């Protein structure tokens, strides 16, 4: 009898708890996020949940993690299964999902937001106008040229400010032995895989001011078949021939680039402004104690920034039942409280706090914001999180910001765009390496139009009026 009463009591308590738990669970929506899997994510999401609860918008956040390596491909396959989380972090291949109406138009949500609308950078606003499905509140991913500051001092030269000075400077770098190993084995500059990183700082010097340029007759032509591009490639050809540009750039990936930079085999490299430049600085100091980085200004400004759409960022599933909660998470992360959590890392591990005084710890070098780095006019951290050189690279990006006129290609042109891109990339190496002389330019232009460029140009002329 006693046992039966005891069991009845336990069952009643369990039922009451489960019902109560159900009610609580209904009050707190669960938002699923698919993104990179990083160490420390669980703790970060706990702190975000706590912060949101304190702000009066409690949510449960469930991370569906994917490895960073091959993330874009793995994400596509995961979403194709039809199991789509509330918030999706894309690193490409989002357009097909947007075309199918899977992604929510974030425009109206941003309009009504408490924080995001004020936290965005100007390029974010332009991109959301053109493609309102993907949001990434970060500084434009411009590239900055950096080198060892002690080498700059040893050279006795001023940091270059125009193209002629850049050429002379890089020549000097490639003909000196600043690493002191007794050999002239240092190249002036290295861009891994292709010339994209060189373009970031040299495009404007040759008039490659946008993706689409108007020719003499007022017609739009792709910059890749313009006279400006020809002049730029002739310049690269000279850098290659004179041993200023590392001749093995095309077989070098970013790891090789970094290795050559830290070991003194190349003087100047380009890195994404802000956190990446900070990483280069940290690694350079580790490899060469006492060494610091100097930021170099581009000769005539940075390449135009694509504002057609974000190239990565967060989207909300259009058919999510928790859209409101999902957007609340993104909006909270743009709030001062959310920014503090996301950008400062963990107290005691990444920073210390004594009243209003903060001190950044060395481990901060391994921390980066998972969500937003908002416009500093809207919110600035209580302590400098980046070194002067990294902060300077961000300011350089803002100073030279120019909006590009590229646009999103329709799916029907995917094969043409791919073919033209491959043709261009292969041709660029052949020009730069001297395998093709610049006299073959007209032949190249003809080949580019035949390799899908004509279809691209025809379409562009209907878009760019």
């Amino acid at each position: 009898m006693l046992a039966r009463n005891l069991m009845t009591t336990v069952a009643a308590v369990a039922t009451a708890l489960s019902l109560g738990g159900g009610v609580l669970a209904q009050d707190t929506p669960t938002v699923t996020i698919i993104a990179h899997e990083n160490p420390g994510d669980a703790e970060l999401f706990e702190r975000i949940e706590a912060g949101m609860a304190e702000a009066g918008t409690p949510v449960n956040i469930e991370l569906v993690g994917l490895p960073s390596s091959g993330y874009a491909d793995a994400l596509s396959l995961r979403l194709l299964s039809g199991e789509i989380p509330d918030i999706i972090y894309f690193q490409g291949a989002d357009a097909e999902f947007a075309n199918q109406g899977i992604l929510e138009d974030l425009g109206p949500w941003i309009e009504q937001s408490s924080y995001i609308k004020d936290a965005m950078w100007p390029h974010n606003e332009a991109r959301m106008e053109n493609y309102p499905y993907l949001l990434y509140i970060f500084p434009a991913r411009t590239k900055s040229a950096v080198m060892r500051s002690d080498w700059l001092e040893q050279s006795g030269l001023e940091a270059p400010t125009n193209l002629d000075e850049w050429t002379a400077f890089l020549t000097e770098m490639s003909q000196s032995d600043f690493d002191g190993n007794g050999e002239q084995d240092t190249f002036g500059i290295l861009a891994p895989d292709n010339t994209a990183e060189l373009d970031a700082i040299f495009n404007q010097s040759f008039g490659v001011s946008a993706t689409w340029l108007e020719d003499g007759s007022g017609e739009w032509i792709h910059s890749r078949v313009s006279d400006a591009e020809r002049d730029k490639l002739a310049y690269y050809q000279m850098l290659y021939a004179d041993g200023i540009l590392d001749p093995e750039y095309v077989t070098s990936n970013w790891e090789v680039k970094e290795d050559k930079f830290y070991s003194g085999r190349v003087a100047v490299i380009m890195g994404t402004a802000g956190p990446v430049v900070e990483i280069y600085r940290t690694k350079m100091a580790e490899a060469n104690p006492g060494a610091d980085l100097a930021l170099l200004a581009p000769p005539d400004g940075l390449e135009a920034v694509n504002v057609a759409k974000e190239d990565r960022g967060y989207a909300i599933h259009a058919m999510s039942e928790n859209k409101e909660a999902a957007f609340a998470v993104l909006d909270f992360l743009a709030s001062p409280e959310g920014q503090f959590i996301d950008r400062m890392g963990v107290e005691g591990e990444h920073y210390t706090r004594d009243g209003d005084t903060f001190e950044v710890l060395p481990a901060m070098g391994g921390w980066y914001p998972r969500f937003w780095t908002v416009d500093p006019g809207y919110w600035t951290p209580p302590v400098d999180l980046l070194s002067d050189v990294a902060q300077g690279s961000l300011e350089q990006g803002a100073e030279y910001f120019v909006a590009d006129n590229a646009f999103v290609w329709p799916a029907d042109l995917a094969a043409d765009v791919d073919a033209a891109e491959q043709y261009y990339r292969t041709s660029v190496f052949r020009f730069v390496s001297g395998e093709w002389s610049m006299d073959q330019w007209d032949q190249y232009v003809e080949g580019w139009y035949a390799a899908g460029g004509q279809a691209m140009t025809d379409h562009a002329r209907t878009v760019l009026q």
Partner: protein
Amino acid sequence: MSLDEKQLASTVSNFGNVPKSAKRVPWRIAFGLKLRAWWPYYAMMTPGIIYFLVFHYFPIYQAKLAFEDFRIFGDNLFVGFKHFDTLFDSPAFFQVLANTLIISAMKMVFVFPVPIFIALFINEVRSTNLRRFIQSAIYLPHFLSWVVIAGIFIAALSPSSGVVNDIGQALGFAPRSFMTESGSIRWVVVFSEMWRTAGWDSLLYFAAIMAIDPQLYDAAEMDGANRWQKIVHVTLPGITPTIATLFILNVGLFMNAGFDQIFNLSNDAIRDQIDIIDTYVYRIGLQSGQFSLATAAGLFKGVIGMVLIVAAHTISKRLTGKGVW
């Protein structure tokens, strides 16, 4: 179970096979008897059958995506041959197809025979320790990923610091950039494939050589055959069925020119020389999100592969009487 069935089952287990009389019993009983007699083999086959069903046969049904516009939710839209038209109109596709055929043909001609020579060579090594050392050394690359192998080849073939060019320069040759020259990159692909697979693939031929009746060698020796003659007249004919079977299977995989290998060895300088259908499908399908177009390219490749294997099988049957089915 009736007495007759018990007797039948006993016969089956005694002789290890289903007797002809089983054909006269109902198929359910015959199947049950076969299952009882051969269950360990069926059990061993099951994972393989499941693998092929899940990863090779069920996906055939999804190849219909090549004829549809893909929708994540709702029914796909049937568009007929639209994606094939796009594919064949693509300026890059025929270059990619040509690269696939050329690279596969080069591998067939220059890589396929190498494991046979290696197996014959290893069989002639009399020192057991030396043979084991050689086998271990040549099997090793099989266990390396293409990422690692590509790194090794890029470093070894570097014109400034690579060991190959260092040796070449010591012999009086000018340094060459093998990884960026149109004329050399396909040979790099072939050689790296050979380096990675030839040792491991020689295992099958070596096993086939081990299965040759030693009396044949004794008889050949009695007839005065030297080692070369024993290779030509005993060993090679002994492994001919294995060579024929593997050749036909390789023909079936002719269009698989090696995604991982090409992806890792590729760079902007030579992509037009080694871009194959698989890398094209990866770019168009996964990176650009054009799943239907990529499926059309993949299906096209699969159909060519099927035609090739049927043709190779038929020719082999007519010429040698041996095939794969």
